């Protein structure tokens, strides 16, 4: 089976002597069993946060954006910080499933499903903020170029914010489609095992009648390939566009050509951190240790090291250009120690610590192959990336060109509530997903069982000995 050969030195991607049927069993188990205590606890916590956040949003829309800590100089604060943060988190999913598919990285198969789910849920959170940060949400639909009774009243395609509208909505819908198409064969698998009539009905609905015909498989693989090909430039374009919100402005510290690559790198950085955080939990809760192996965890940590490095370089470049530009305003933002010693020093150092110093620990194999360490560092990176966005937005506009308008931003309880709310919402979605969706692309996984499954690897080795 030449097609099935893989160098034996490679660690198996699937541990334990699995058969095709075992895979089906393992993947379907979380769906068919009842939820454990752990799941329910986390679900109720998430739901509470979600509802609290929802209340805060309602209050904001009811009274006005003044409910937040913004002012005439800092017209954006946590709202856009959270937006950029969530979008960034989304990136890893698409990256894993699309880019790694193009690069034929087999290790992705165990994690891409959940990563994509995370992407979609994160983008949902992200999408909340541009909407509620509007002073007049109820006319928010004006951002679409709709024919209207006012006559020639169109959107402004020069505006990076409008670019965002297109980028985010495309990104969201395309990744959803990509994800769902991948799910169809797995839904079919669950449908065909389903015992109770209701589950049968539901999964029949979701499976679209998939039967696994040869021609369909051929089309299916073509589709995944092309969608991956489309999603790859998309994932880069999205955060590039988000970075344009700042890069194309005239505000010093925002107006910076390095932003697109810097933002994308940052996004992948935070995205993978979030994938780690979630998978390590899912792995435990859904008993998927055999599929999400230490090898997966380590390789993702390596991605984190690389992207983290890129981000570090970006910081350096920003500072260098700040000095090199000779503009006293740029100079002021970066070189004067204000950022590091001013009242926002904590945000600045939080950023440096969480994004530069702590992730450097991953250079040690012992750290990056340690589950607990990985989990903690991943969390820290997420915090760090949030602070990065906070620093970019708040520190820069709180001190812009005319000193007379200098002032500062401090969140109100409502700001905090909205943010927690989105975290809760994200949790709710992800937990429901973990209970009802095949969290691993089993169909894909079965194709590599013979190549990278433990059973077959060992068999091959024996063959060679005789």
């Amino acid at each position, binding site marked *: 089976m030449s097609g099935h050969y893989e160098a034996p030195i490679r660690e198996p991607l699937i541990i334990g002597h699995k058969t095709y049927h075992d895979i089906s069993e393992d993947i379907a188990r979380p769906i068919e069993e009842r939820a454990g205590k752990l799941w329910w606890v986390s679900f109720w916590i998430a739901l509470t946060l979600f509802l609290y956040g929802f209340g805060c949003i309602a209050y904001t829309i009811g009274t006005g954006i003044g409910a937040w800590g913004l002012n005439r100089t800092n017209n954006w604060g946590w709202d856009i910080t959270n937006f950029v943060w969530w979008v960034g988190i989304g990136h890893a999913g698409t990256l894993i499933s699309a880019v790694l598919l193009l690069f034929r990285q087999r290790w992705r198969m165990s994690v891409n499903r959940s990563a994509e789910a995370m992407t979609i849920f994160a983008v949902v959170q992200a999408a909340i903020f541009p909407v509620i940060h509007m002073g007049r949400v109820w006319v928010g639909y004006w951002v679409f170029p709709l024919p209207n009774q006012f006559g020639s009243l169109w959107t402004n395609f020069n505006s990076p914010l409008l670019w965002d509208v297109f980028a985010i909505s495309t990104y969201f*819908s395309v990744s959803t489609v990509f994800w769902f198409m991948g799910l169809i064969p797995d839904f*079919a698998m669950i449908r065909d095992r389903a015992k109770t009539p209701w589950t049968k009905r539901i999964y029949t609905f979701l499976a679209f009648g998939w039967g696994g015909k040869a021609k369909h498989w051929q089309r299916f693989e*073509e589709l995944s*390939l092309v969608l991956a090909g489309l999603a790859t430039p998309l994932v880069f374009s999205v955060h590039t566009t988000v970075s344009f919100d700042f890069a194309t402005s005239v505000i010093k510290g925002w107006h910076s050509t390095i932003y697109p690559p810097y933002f994308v790198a940052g996004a992948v950085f935070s995205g993978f951190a979030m994938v780690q955080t979630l998978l390590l939990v899912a792995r435990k809760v859904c008993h998927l240790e055999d599929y999400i192996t230490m090898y997966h965890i380590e390789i993702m940590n390596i991605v984190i090291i690389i992207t983290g490095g890129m981000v570090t370089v970006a910081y350096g470049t920003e500072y260098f250009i700040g000095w090199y530009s000779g503009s006293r305003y740029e100079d002021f933002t970066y070189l004067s120690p204000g950022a590091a010693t001013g009242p926002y020093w904590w945000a600045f150092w939080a950023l440096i610590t969480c994004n530069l110093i702590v992730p450097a620990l991953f250079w040690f194999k012992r750290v990056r192959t340690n589950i607990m360490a990985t989990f903690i560092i991943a969390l820290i990176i997420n915090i760090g990336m949030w602070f990065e966005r906070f620093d970019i937005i708040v520190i820069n506009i709180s001190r812009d060109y005319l000193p007379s308008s200098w002032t500062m931003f401090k969140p109100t309880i409502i700001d905090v509530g909205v943010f927690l709310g989105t975290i809760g919402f994200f949790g709710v979605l992800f937990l429901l997903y973990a209970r009802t969706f095949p969290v691993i692309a089993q169909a894909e996984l079965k194709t590599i069982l013979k190549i990278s499954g433990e059973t077959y690897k060992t068999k091959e080795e024996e063959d060679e000995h005789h």
Partner: protein
Amino acid sequence: MSTTKIVFGIYADDDDLLNGVHAFNEKGIAINEVYTPFPVHGLDKALGLRKTRISDAAFMYAVYGLCIGVTVTWYTMNHDWAQNIGGKPSFDWGHNMPAFVVPMFELMVFCAAHMMSLTFLIRNKMYPGCPPQNPDPRTTDDKFMMEFVTDNVDAVKQILIDTGVEEINVKDA
């Protein structure tokens, strides 16, 4: 009365399945359909399926999306109601175009991805709630099934057995 019957041969292993396919090709017996739980490599070649043109369609969709992008930006920004927005040249689309790259690209991707997926579903005759297209539920788990529509049932059975089939069902057409 017709002797035409439908034969299902169910394999437990994808390699055996492939052997089977090759055997039938040698004998020149047409295989009606093959159901597998996952894409078996080389199967489409073995069955001599033509390369799918779904990706070519995707390209057309992309072009279509791009056209929409160009039209919308030109019509709204330069034709219907051109404004002086921050001094950006809105005299004609060519001058203004750099500002429209992002939305045009997004529309392109949007159309390509969605319309391609739709095509996929339509060509496969799949839709929400469509009844399972696989005759045997096990084929989405770990079984590989060949479907024949043939008068010469015995020959088919024989070859199936030779290629290590696990189970054979025969039905009237």
